[in-house]
């Protein structure tokens, strides 16, 4: 419960009608089945929700929380349990009213945006100016500001536009005290061009690898690095299936590549990065594409022994998709030749899928705008992911295969939906410094049997991570964090110190930033617990 006086302060801060403590209205923020392991799929109901319209109003709300012993947490579109409150004394700050593209600087190639600008609309504006922006894998509905400041932020286009953490060129940040801090060049009044100054560079403190998931102040503006866009100002799109029958521009070509071994596939990804070609590159198994586009046909294919799927996966084994974009026909031809050389040298084949009209029309916009994301719900209703980390592609690949063995067990016993394959989402960053991979599990969150699988499967994935010397991004979740932190330089102890230094009164909701929770081993096979103990003893505290 929030006191009337504290609630009155919040109303005063944001204006009448922009604060609520009506239970049913607040519950609309609490239904969060994604990444939610709880039995009833609701997250904790917060004390109130507010809708500030400006940085000043956010400051007022945060100061009010400091005065009244309340916590706060900000969100934008708010997809997933990590966006919810983790205790009842939290004031949720819904940033929906802060939805402006403040500036697009074409010459210096950056955009300054507020929290509720979504990736799709920013990209649409950028395309009109011959520019492009990175869209996170979560999809075009997601907030680029949230990705850049508070989450991980990789995506289909990371090969050409990197991850969100690399695209931050300064932020406006309301600290847990209510003070405003400008990071990067804005901090010295020099404009928004650089995240590392002149002016304070606290990018590592601010977000580290994966961000604080709303547990470390409120980011109210961000400058994002933009990239060149060789395509047209807009692409018309229509059609019954996923709204995606848009023509791929002439300056682009799209290939499906497959290989005789995983090693060859990964090697090809490395070489493509080194050759600096490609606009989009993403691994999706062929059967997964069938599943997303034709979900009603898929169970029939599985029931018939999966022969067709196995054939598909066999023909297009260890695959990835790549979209090439050239500034001129000559440059595009060059990229195509380089791609073919690389694929050949890695014992693979590159199918010119983009020359097949239905595939070209279907995949073009879905890849460019990352619109493929919502289709992942089509078949099962929900998905979970091991949220792999950022590592060398070899490591990512090995982890995925290790998890697959566990996943198959759950599929066999009805704990997960049979998706016909490994179902990895694997992408390449920049020029192959590293990459990212997630193993996707499809399930129906309405099915208790499926929900029961998630925790033990998550434990399996964590064990695999330790064996593969990887720190999963799912370490934002309190149980995984408690397991992983001692194995990786006690990272959470450092995060707690940072949090305490900036948040003297402890008013940020740190449930997905620094909080830890003991694992519930009652659902875990004792042999696996023993294995964890052995791994902890081997790697614990050493950081090796």
């Amino acid at each position, binding site marked *: 419960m929030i006191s009337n006086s504290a609630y009155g302060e919040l109303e005063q801060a944001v204006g009448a*009608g*922009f604060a609520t403590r*009506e*239970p*049913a*209205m607040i*519950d*609309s*923020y*609490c*239904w*969060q*089945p*994604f990444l939610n392991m709880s039995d009833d*799929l*609701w997250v904790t109901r917060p004390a109130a*929700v507010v*809708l500030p319209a400006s940085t000043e109003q956010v400051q007022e709300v945060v100061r009010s929380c400091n005065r009244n012993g309340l916590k706060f947490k900000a969100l934008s*579109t*708010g*997809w*997933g349990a990590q966006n919810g409150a983790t205790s009842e004394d939290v004031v949720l700050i*819904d940033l*929906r*009213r802060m939805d402006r*593209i403040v500036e697009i600087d074409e010459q210096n190639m950056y955009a300054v945006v507020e929290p509720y*600008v*979504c990736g*799709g*609309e920013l*990209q*649409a*504006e950028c395309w009109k100016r011959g520019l492009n922006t990175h869209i996170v894998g979560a*999809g*075009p*509905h997601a907030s680029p500001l949230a990705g850049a400041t508070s989450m991980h932020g990789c995506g289909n286009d990371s090969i050409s536009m990197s991850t969100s953490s690399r695209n931050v060129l300064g932020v406006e940040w309301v600290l847990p005290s209510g003070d405003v801090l400008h990071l990067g060049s804005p901090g010295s009044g020099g404009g928004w061009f650089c995240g590392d100054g002149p002016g304070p560079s606290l990018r590592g403190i601010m977000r580290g690898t994966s961000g604080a998931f709303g547990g470390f102040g409120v980011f109210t503006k961000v400058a994002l690095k933009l990239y060149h866009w060789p395509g047209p100002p*807009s*692409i018309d*799109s229509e059609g*019954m*299936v*996923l*709204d*995606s029958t*848009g023509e791929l521009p002439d300056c682009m070509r799209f290939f499906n590549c497959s290989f005789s071994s995983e090693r060859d596939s990964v090697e090809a990804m490395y070489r493509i990065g080194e050759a600096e070609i490609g606009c989009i590159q993403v691994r999706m198994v062929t059967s997964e594409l069938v599943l997303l586009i034709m*979900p*009603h046909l898929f169970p029939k294919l599985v029931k018939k022994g999966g022969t067709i799927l196995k054939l598909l996966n066999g023909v297009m084994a260890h695959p990835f998709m790549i979209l090439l974009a050239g500034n001129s026909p000559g440059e595009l031809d060059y990229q195509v030749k380089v791609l073919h050389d690389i694929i050949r040298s890695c014992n693979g084949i590159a199918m010119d899928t983009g020359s097949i009209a239905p595939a070209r029309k279907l995949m073009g916009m879905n890849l460019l*705008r990352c*619109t493929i994301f*919502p*289709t992942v*719900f*089509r*078949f*099962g*209703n*929900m998905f979970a992911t091991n949220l792999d980390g950022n590592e060398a592609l070899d490591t990512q690949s090995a982890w995925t295969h290790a998890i697959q063995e566990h996943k198959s067990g759950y599929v066999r016993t009805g704990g997960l939906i049979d998706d016909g394959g490994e179902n990895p989402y694997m992408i390449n960053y920049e020029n192959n410094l590293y990459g990212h991979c997630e193993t996707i599990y499809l399930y*129906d*969150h*309405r099915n208790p049997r499926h929900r029961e699988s998630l925790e033990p499967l998550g434990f399996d994935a964590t064990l695999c991570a330790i064996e593969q010397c990887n720190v999963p991004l799912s370490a934002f979740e309190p149980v995984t964090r408690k397991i992983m932190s001692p194995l990786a330089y006690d990272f959470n102890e450092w995060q707690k110190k940072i949090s305490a230094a900036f948040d003297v009164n402890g008013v940020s909701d740190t449930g997905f930033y620094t909080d830890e929770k003991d694992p519930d081993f009652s659902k875990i096979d004792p042999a696996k617990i023993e294995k964890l103990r052995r791994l902890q003893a081997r790697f614990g505290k050493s950081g090796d």
Partner: protein
Amino acid sequence: MALADFRDDMMSCVRCSSCKWIPFNQMKSSRFAKNCPSICMHGFHSYSGSGRINMGLSLLEGRSELTEKVSEVIYSCQMCGACDTHCKVYREVIDVNDVFLELRARCVEDGQLMLEHMAVIDALKRENNMLGEPKAERGVWADGLGLKDINVEAADVMFHAGCRFAYDRDLWPGVRSAVKLLMAAGLDVGTAGAEESCCGGRAFELGYRGEARNFFEDMLARVKSSGASMLVTPCADGYAAFKYLFPLAGIELPVEVLHTAQLLERLLLEGRLRPRRRVPLKVTYHDPCHLGRMGEPYLGKWEGDKRERLRPMSRTGKNGVYDPPRNLLRSVPGLSLVEMERIREYAWCCGAGGGVIDAFPEYAEWTAAERLEEAVSTGAEILVTSCPWCERVLNDAVEKSGAGIEVRDLNEILLDSCAPGEGLVIE
């Protein structure tokens, strides 16, 4: 049906927020990227498609109560279906608007009513129309047109004007133009005149199912007794009621149901309607929600898990009436049709629907003003539409905002272009 019948739909919401935007592949600007007037106006998630069904689940599970404020949130929605359509771009499992209908029925059951809506229902009971105008004057709009009286003689086409067209004198040129065009094409058209009553669609949308059913049955009886083979209306709200709400309530009209735009397009293709006079205008077309995405026919109740429902068995919004009005406009010599960014199944609502024009007139006006801004951005001189409710609220918004654009009914433009000598009676 009851809210509990939609538990699976509500539980299937993953809260991805797609319902707040136009389909992502259609986004061409930031300014016109959003699709839901309700959350744009009010802000809280509970005002979105997802938020309302999250609230519905909360109410169903007894986590919260249906209060006056919650009722206000439920009714602060035009029922325009934009959220439903975008959700269905990717999935077939959630019938968002059907959940809204159940929430409203629950409000009425629980006595959480909006006073303004009660006034509408009172007017319906008293005068058989939503505007509270005298029953006896319902047929005045058709004076002098020579329409048959279907109460006393048979006609092939039963013309249903609808409440707004019947009583809103400002809009009479539109409805009269429609009749003139149909008659000029040689059709045998009749109307019920003073005996015509409301279709009942709005009452159903407001959750007053008993009252709505009375009007549905009255309409069914009138259609049957008319002997007509076709029911034609220029009102998008009425059209959606006949195509979706009637069968949802278990009532099938035994005739072909068409909006005037569909019938006129048919006449155009048959060569019975020939626009010849040049109309040198630059126009843009506003898709009425209830003629477009909400005008899709009811496809029956899906039994079982909706994940197994095939796309053609879902209300996707793709099969609304979008091309007939555009084809008619393109047939007009000299007329240039330019499109807004949000069109067809992802069009922005005019603001009038779902009882918003009655209970929240300022919100309706704001929604309309947004649409006007989009229309003006195309450089068009005229915003054409084919629904009297859209025309009313858009015209009111022009008057208040001074937006540099005129709003006209499709039928008026067509009549302008159909030269004398085609059998038309030009006043």
